């Protein structure tokens, strides 16, 4: 019935933080399960790690590293907003958080391929 506003930068920062958080929370159980294979079935884990050499999988890993980095930098921005003296430049900081996350995850990708 009533269209809410959905365009301003800090709403986008919010949705990015939320979706990256959900993505990481869903990934973690898989991540943990895979690591515990080192104990229960090392051969299967080695087989999986060989599978991660595929370029497509590297791209997915790039995505995961980006989610982690953007959730961390975005979260640091929020905590700075809450606990440090107020700054009106939140849009710039949000953009910086995304840029840093790209920088880190691209760094990972270049080392991975």
């Amino acid at each position: 019935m009533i269209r809410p506003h959905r365009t301003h930068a800090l709403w986008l920062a919010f949705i990015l933080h939320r979706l990256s958080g959900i993505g990481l929370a869903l990934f973690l159980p898989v991540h943990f399960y895979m690591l515990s294979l080192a104990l229960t079935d090392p051969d299967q884990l080695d087989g999986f790690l060989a599978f991660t050499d595929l370029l497509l999988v590297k791209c997915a890993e790039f995505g995961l590293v980006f989610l982690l980095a953007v959730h961390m930098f975005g979260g640091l921005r929020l905590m700075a907003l809450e606990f440090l003296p107020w700054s009106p430049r939140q849009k710039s900081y949000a953009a910086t958080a995304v840029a840093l996350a790209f920088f880190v995850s691209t760094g990972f990708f270049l080392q991975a391929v």
Partner: protein
Amino acid sequence: MLTLRLYFAQRLTALIMAPLTLGHLAVMIYAVQGGLSVAEILARTQGSVAWFLFYGGFVVAVAVHAAIGLRVVVSEWLGVRGIALSVFSLVVLATLLLLGGRAVWAVTFAGGGL
């Protein structure tokens, strides 16, 4: 959905994880060079108290942080409230603690077989 105590736990675990995440990112970028293998991972972590504390602390913090974060998401987006919401948060917390704890144990101190 967030009271002061939950908020505080959420921010505290976030602060703890900030340096841990940076460390984890650095390790990933270092370790991924030349591909990964079980032997390589275990050579780094097996028997190391430092890695056990690093990743053990990480698991505890992330379990608390994710349980509170997902609690807010399911309450705001799916309308879950009351007891169901508390049960959901505790299940997330327990699952991540259990799986994460097992993973950390597997790569640090578990010598042979469970």
